[in-house]
């Protein structure tokens, strides 16, 4: 019997060594250790042996044989699986640069990108974001901004007028700046006010590389107790560093606007020393505060405004503003 066991074991080990696939291993497993396997059958024959010593010896021998075959099966199975996996991995090789570019993401308009970045910077400085209508009354766009009907400064705005049945002719305009939002914000909320108002504005300007009849501005307004010119300069400076980055500084220089006094322009100095004229600003004129229902003796404020398109144009070195408004996908995809 022991010889039979040895022979069965050796035969099994031989077959295992020769197995080429995992399926072969499964088959061998069945043929040797399965219900009707060679070793299994030998086990049933143990009972017919004579003495207990003989039975014990044969049993031990059979256990050893079974373990040896099992171990061999496991080892071979693992080896074959490793080979199979390695073969599959090799067969699956891909060249990741064999790539047909299919557009997947949409592209945000560069003006929107600038707009949102600006909002984020001012939100960080404690501002909220106000909005107002693009078709405005003459009153909000001019009158309440200290520009009464016949004021010559009005002619500088190249206003487009809207034929609106609900109002007398010549009193409905496409807003020429975001400043009317100042008045709306003041009338809607008691001070203190810390707002920015980004939005679309309109001027009767012939389109060229740097002008569009439709463009975007962002307006800032702060009204609080004892707000002064230094606060204006400080806010512009804080904005400059937050938006443009370290190494950029700002300056204010006197200018003239009807709705602020003292008025100023502000410039940004790039780290290379080049100055960039950015926008207009000033202390809110007492008449404008009054138009907003605010007592200029109790409160004071500053306002500033500049172009958003310009920020996008500079950031991406777009040399012609008209490109921004073509709807050309080849433009959009660049950003």
């Amino acid at each position, binding site marked *: 019997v022991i010889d039979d066991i040895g022979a069965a074991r050796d035969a099994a080990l031989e077959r295992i060594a020769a197995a080429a696939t995992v399926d072969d291993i499964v088959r061998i497993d069945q043929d040797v250790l399965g219900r009707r396997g060679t070793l299994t059958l030998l086990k049933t024959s143990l009972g017919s042996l004579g003495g207990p010593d003989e039975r014990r010896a044969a049993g031990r021998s059979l256990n050893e044989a079974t373990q040896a075959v099992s171990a061999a099966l496991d080892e071979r199975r693992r080896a074959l699986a490793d080979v199979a996996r390695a073969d599959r991995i090799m067969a699956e090789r891909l060249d990741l640069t064999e790539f047909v570019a299919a557009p997947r993401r*949409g592209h*945000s308009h560069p003006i929107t990108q600038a707009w949102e970045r600006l909002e984020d910077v001012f939100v960080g400085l404690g501002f909220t974001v106000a909005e107002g209508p693009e078709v405005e009354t003459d009153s909000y766009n001019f009158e309440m901004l200290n520009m009464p009907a016949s004021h010559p400064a009005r002619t500088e705005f190249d206003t487009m007028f809207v034929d609106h049945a609900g109002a007398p002719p010549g009193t409905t305009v496409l807003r020429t700046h975001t400043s009317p939002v100042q008045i709306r914000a003041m009338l809607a909320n008691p001070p203190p006010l810390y707002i920015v108002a980004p939005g679309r504005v309109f001027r009767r300007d012939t389109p060229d590389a740097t002008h569009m009849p439709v463009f975007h501005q962002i307006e800032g307004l702060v009204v609080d107790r004892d707000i002064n010119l230094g606060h204006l300069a400080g806010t512009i*400076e804080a904005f400059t560093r937050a938006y443009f980055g370290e190494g950029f500084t700002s300056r204010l220089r006197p200018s003239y606007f009807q709705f602020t006094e003292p008025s100023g322009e502000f410039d940004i100095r790039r780290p290379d020393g080049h100055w960039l004229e950015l926008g207009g600003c000033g202390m809110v004129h007492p008449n404008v505060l009054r138009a907003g229902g605010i007592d200029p003796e109790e409160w004071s404020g500053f306002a500033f405004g500049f172009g958003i398109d310009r920020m996008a144009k500079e950031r991406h070195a777009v040399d012609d503003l008209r490109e921004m408004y073509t709807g050309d996908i080849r433009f959009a995809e660049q950003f």
Partner: protein
Amino acid sequence: MNVSLDWLREYVLIGSDVESIAATLSGLGMAVEDVAHVGGIPGVVTARVLRLERHPDAAKVIRVWVDRGDGVEHHVWCGASNFSPGDVVPLATVGTAMPDGRTIGSRGILGIASDGMLCSARELGLGSDHSGILVLPADAPLGVPYGEVTGLVDDVVLDVDVTRNRPDAWGHVGIARDLAAKLRLPFTPPRPPAPAVGAPAEATVEIVDGDRCGRFTLTIISGVTVAPSAPWMAARLAAVGQRPINNVVDVSNYVMLELNQPNHAYDLATLGGRGIRVRLAAEGEVLTTLDGVERKLTAEELLICDAFDRPIGLAGIMGGADSEISDATTTVALEFAWFEPLGIAASVTRTGLRSDASARWERGVDPYGIDTSIARFIELLRETSPGLVVHAGAVDARAESLPPQHRSTAVRRRQVNRIIGVELRRDEIAALLDPIEFTVSGGDEESFDVAIPSWRPDSTEEIDIVEEVARHYGYENVPKRVPLSPLHGHLSVGQQRRRRIREVLLGLGISEVMPSPFLSDDELARAGLDSDVLRITNPLVVGEDVLRPSLRPGLMGAVAFNESHRRTGVALFEIGRVYPPGPGELPDEREVLGVVLAGAEAPAAVAVWRELASSLGIGARIDQQRVPPGLHPTRSATLVAGREDIGAIGEIAPDVLEAFDVDERVAVLELDLASVLASEPRPARWKATSRHPSSDLDMAFVLDESVPAEKLEKAIRQGAGSLLVGLELFDVYRGAGVAAGSRSLAYRLRLQAADRTLTDADTAAVVAQVRAAAEKLGAVLRA
């Protein structure tokens, strides 16, 4: 305003560092836009004419030999002969770059070279005289830059941006005053002597419409010799871009550019009735202006007329053609006046005529600078017309619109410091204001009077004084500080949701564009939209006067543009306002989202809508019974939330595609953002995911085409009840085996219980309930 530094130095001794001068001006609110170097043309030198010779083969030119101080005889050809041997003339040497762009070469004629060119005044940029070569003083040194001899110095001219509130800075003296104050340098404005007065000469002035003309003076000057101006004056005028003409006109311009006092010199001989009437035009009255144009006027235009009431000029804007100074003029009637600024501004707008003078009048001229200006005019004219006589009896007519000479305002020290953010004492404030002749007086340390100079008409109240103090204190000296907002910065719910819409769309591969909001009637019609729209009364482009009632025309334009550039299949969106007319104080302006998907069919738009709806927590019914105009009649719908239409969905109508010359199908979604942005729904509540196995159940129904699948889906959800955790429409079939006019809709239901493994009985119950619910819609379960 062109500002000559040489000219400024007559009143304030500024240095030569142009950059620092420009910075100082900029710090005062006068931005320097451009810097130009003018003056003698390098290469043009003085030379003495030695001899002249005609050439037998050249009739129009002569040969000239000159000495330019180097002891060599230089030969030049010359087309003029207004000079003789011994005269000193300007010689442009070979290689000189002339103001007109020419470079002087040595190529002559008849094979004889020309060693340079003799120059006329015009060729040197010194005026219009081209009648001959400019003859210089005979004692001039030879071989030196001709500018040294003509008084023309190398000069720097700044283009200064003068703001509306600084009319005084439209004259060199005004700018010099500001500079002197800022740089703490002495200021020496012209102080002309009062002119000696000769025999009385009669002239009359009548101001008829005194609300438009506050003052009108007329001074008679006889014995005038009209001649070229002195070279120094011609040079200064030329430097700032004013073409020298003759001494009278030049002095007139000079005084305007120096003192910001526009004025007019009439030839008395041509002034009918030796007098002036200032009156409004009659409606339709005609005047031929200096530029030779015959103009029909409205009754709002102010005219200067002669004593016979014949119009001779449009007040403050442009003279008439008839009363100009000519070479024959000997007696001048000199006008200095004050016109009401708003009236001039309105006239300029109405007539479209503008001039250097009108630009000044519009902003406001000093009505009390007239006397000095008259004296200055005479002082300057006397230089080239020494025989002139100023007659007594000059008229100084005044009317009610003349502003008061002395104006002042009360100023509080606290207010100055509060607005600027400084701590200035009264004496410090006074020291800043005094040099610009705003005079502090009266009151006490805390409040006082400030007298306002008459050349600052814009300045009337306390805040104007605050601005002057700030300007001269220097904005750059005010300490910068960041105000501490007591509020927390944030985006509103609507602003956050707008950003989420963008994120979702970008994630779906849709790109943002910004087409023009202005449309033509044609674009409107092509998009199939109604022509009841809001219009611009003065559009930039004739015909593009429609304010868009929908984003679709713009987006379709973009699709067409891209398709025509071989970019098919673009997916674009815009978030922007539309402006339908409305009955209120303002039109019915609304913010809208528009999405177009070129090369895609309607379901693609539905997919986008579903993503947006799920991301924003909104819902709407797809009502295919109501198809918005311009959309595909059988593939589009109105989106209805509650009772409100919130948008449109589907495909662009075939005729619209055709009209836009677009070959692809275009799926479209339009969403009114007002309600979408208004509120954020409550955050989604977590539901525990079941740990028990789920099972899938496929059910196909035959449903009449008239019933939207959406309804069947709703019925299935209701029927399946709480065991339903997933529902998917996986097949739609029309054809054999399904009755015409209906289709088969196959759904996969995923069932799962939270607390147990499903039994066959559970599944059977769901099937029965779903079937019953579907049958109410007429849907029949397929075997």
